[in-house]
C-alpha cells in the first residue's frame, strides 16, 4: 500500500481543460472517492494515476515517487473498469490470473491463487466459464477478483458498480466497504453516485469543471458543504436551496424571500464580509431537517403541495414555490400524511446553511 499525490496537475484535450491545476494527497490506506457529475474530470484524474493518460503539466506521485511519466505496468496498481474489460477469449480462471501471468508466475500457482480469490468473491464454481456465459453481477466480481489477485500499491475503481441493478449495487457496495476494512487498501474510487461515495470513502473529493471543490470526510461534506454545488450534489434528496435577499437590521440578519418566514439571525463578521460582496444570499436546508410545521412556528416555507411520496419509513413531501423552485422535506413517518392544498414546512434555525452571492459557504452559521 502506498500514498498518492497530485501536485498542480493539469490535463488538456486540445482547448478543453479536463483537469485544471488539481492538487491533493491521499494517505496510505485511505479510501478516497472522486465524486462529481459527468465531465467533471474525475475519470481523467483516475486515469492519470493509472498512467493511461499523461498530465499536460504537474506531477503524479505514488508512494512518494514521481510516476508522472511511468508506463501503467511499472506503477504496480490494480484497476476495476466500468465496463469490466474481461478478456472474452479467456475463461474466468485465466482472466483473474492474467496479472500473475504477466508477472511470470507458474500456471499451477496462479490458478491456485485465482481460485482462492474467486472463492472469496463467490465465483469459484464458475472458473471454467467464459465471461459471456455469466451474469452481470458475476462479471463485476470477476473484474474485482482480477484486481485483487496480486498485491498492488493502489487500487483504482472507475464507477465499478454503475452497470449493476440497484439491489446488486447495494450488495457490492457493502462488500467493498468490508474489503476496505479487511485489507486497509489505498483506493481511489470514481463515482457520480453520492450515496456510494458517502458509504465507502474515508475522504471525498467533490469535483466540478476540472477542479476539486471540496476535499473532506463524508460527514464534513454532508454537514458543512463548501459551496452550493456540493450542497446540491450530496444528500438524497439534495439540500434545498432558496435564494434570499439579506439585509442588516438592528444588528441582526434579516432574510427575505417569497413564501419564506425566518426569524432574524445573529450577525457575524463572516456574514458582514459576505454582505459587502452582495446582498443575494442562498439559504440551504436539508430535506431531513424540514417537517410539517404547526401554527406559529418561527421558521417556515409555505407553498402549494407538489408531490407527496410515501417511501415506507419516510415520506418525501415536495412543495412548489413557483418557477420550478421546489422544496422537499423528508419526513420520517411510516404513515401516509394527509396534507391540504398548501403546506407549511418548518425548520430549526441551527439547521440553516448560508452561502454568499458567489455560492461559497458562509462559515459559522451552524458549525
Amino acid at each position, binding site marked *: 500500500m502506498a500514498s498518492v499525490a497530485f501536485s498542480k496537475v493539469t490535463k488538456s484535450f486540445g482547448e478543453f481543460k479536463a483537469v485544471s491545476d488539481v492538487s491533493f494527497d491521499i494517505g496510505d490506506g485511505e479510501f478516497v472517492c472522486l465524486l462529481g457529475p459527468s465531465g467533471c474530470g474525475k475519470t481523467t484524474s483516475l486515469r492519470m494515476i*493509472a*498512467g*493511461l493518460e499523461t498530465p499536460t503539466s504537474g506531477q503524479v506521485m505514488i508512494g512518494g515517487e514521481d510516476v508522472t511519466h511511468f*508506463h*501503467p*505496468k511499472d*506503477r*504496480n*496498481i*490494480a*484497476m476495476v*473498469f*466500468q*465496463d*469490466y*474489460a*474481461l*478478456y*472474452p*477469449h479467456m475463461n474466468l480462471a485465466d*482472466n483473474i490470473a*492474467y*496479472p500473475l*501471468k*504477466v*508477472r511470470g508466475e507458474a500456471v499451477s500457482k496462479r490458478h491456485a491463487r485465482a481460485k482462492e480469490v474467486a472463492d472469496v468473491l463467490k465465483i469459484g464454481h464458475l472458473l471454467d466459464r*467464459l*465471461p*459471456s*456465459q455469466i451474469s*452481470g453481477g458475476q*462479471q*463485476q466480481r470477476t*473484474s474485482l477478483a*482480477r484486481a485483487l489477485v*496480486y498485491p498492488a500499491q493502489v487500487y*483504482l475503481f472507475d464507477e465499478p458498480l454503475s*452497470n449493476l441493478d440497484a439491489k446488486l449495487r447495494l450488495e457490492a457496495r457493502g462488500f467493498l466497504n468490508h474489503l476496505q476494512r479487511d485489507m486497509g487498501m489505498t483506493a481511489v474510487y470514481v463515482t457520480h453516485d453520492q450515496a456510494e461515495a458517502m458509504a465507502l470513502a474515508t475522504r471525498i473529493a467533490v469535483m466540478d469543471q476540472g477542479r476539486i471543490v471540496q476535499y473532506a470526510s463524508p460527514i464534513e461534506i454532508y454537514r458543512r458543504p463548501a459551496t452550493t454545488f456540493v450542497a446540491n450534489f450530496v444528500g438524497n434528496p439534495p439540500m434545498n436551496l432558496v435564494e434570499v435577499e439579506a439585509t442588516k437590521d438592528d444588528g441582526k440578519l434579516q432574510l427575505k424571500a417569497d413564501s419564506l418566514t425566518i426569524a432574524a439571525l445573529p450577525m457575524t463578521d463572516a456574514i458582514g464580509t459576505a454582505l459587502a460582496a452582495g446582498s443575494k444570499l442562498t439559504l440551504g436546508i436539508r430535506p431531513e431537517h424540514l417537517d410539517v410545521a404547526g401554527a406559529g412556528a418561527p421558521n417556515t416555507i409555505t407553498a402549494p403541495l407538489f408531490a407527496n411520496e410515501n417511501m415506507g419509513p419516510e415520506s418525501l413531501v415536495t412543495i412548489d414555490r413557483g418557477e420550478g423552485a421546489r422544496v422537499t422535506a423528508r419526513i420520517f413517518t411510516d404513515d401516509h400524511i394527509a396534507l391540504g392544498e398548501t403546506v407549511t414546512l418548518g425548520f430549526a434555525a441551527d439547521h440553516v446553511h448560508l452561502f454568499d452571492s458567489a455560492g461559497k459557504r458562509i462559515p459559522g452559521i451552524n458549525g
Partner: protein
Amino acid sequence: MKFPALFSRIAFSTLAALIGAAFALPLLWFLFAPFNARAELGLAIPDPFTLSNFNTVFGNGFAMQALWNSLIQAVGGVILVGAAATLAAYALSRSSIPGKGAVTYILLLFSSVVSGSAAMVPIFLIISAAGLMDTHLAVILTFAGGLLPTAMFILRDFIDSIPKSYEESAMVAGASPVQAFFDVALPVIRPGIVVIVVWSFVNIWGSFLIPFILLRSSANMPAAVAIYSFYSEAGTPVVTLLAAYSLIYSLPVVALYLFVSWRFGFRFFGGIKA
C-alpha cells in the same frame, strides 16, 4: 388471407423461383459437367457418371503444378496482407496520429488503381526493374500493395469498435504494450482478421491478369492462368477437362469458407458491459 394478397404472394414466389432457377442453372452445369465424359456447354445429367475427366486432369503435370503455384501465391499474399493490415490498422485505430483518417482514405483511393488494369504498365516496369519478373514474390507483392489499403480500412473500422479498456486493463495489470497486443487485443480482433484473410485469399486465388502479365514460365503459372491451357489450338474450350479442373480449382475457396464459418463463424463478446 384475402384473395388479392394470396394471389400476389403466389406471383411473387413464382417470380423469385424463376430468377433463382436462372442463377442455379450455371451452378448445376458446374456440378454435373465434371462427371460427364461427353460434357458440352448445355446442361445434361451425366450418363454414365464418370471420373475420367478427373483422371485426365490429375495426369496433367502443368495443371497440378499450377494449383500448387496458386496456393503459394495466395498463402504468401494472405500472410503479408493479414500481418501488415493487422499491425497498421491497430496503429491507426489506437494511436492519435494527426490526419490518420485522411491517410487511410488516400490509400484506399490509390489501391483501386494499384491492382487495377490502369497501373499494369507501371507495375510491369517496377517489377522488371526490381528484377522480380517471373517470380512468385512479384505476384505476392503486387497483390499485397493492392489489397492492403482496403484490408486496413476494414480492420481499422473493426478495431475502432472494440473498447480500448481491454488493452488498458492488461497494461494496468502489468503487461507491456506488446504483451497487451498479443494476449488481449489480437484474440479479440481475430474475427476481423479472419474476414481479411478470406477476402484476400479469394481475391488472389481468383485473379488472372496480374499473374498472367508478371509471370513467364509455365512452372510459375497459377491455376487461373492454367485454365487457359484447356483450350484447343483453334481456341475452343475442352469442356470436359475445363469443368473438372474448375471444380477442383473452386474447392479450396469453398473449403476455406466452411472452415472459417465452423471455426470462427461465431463472435465472442461479453467481457465488456455496455
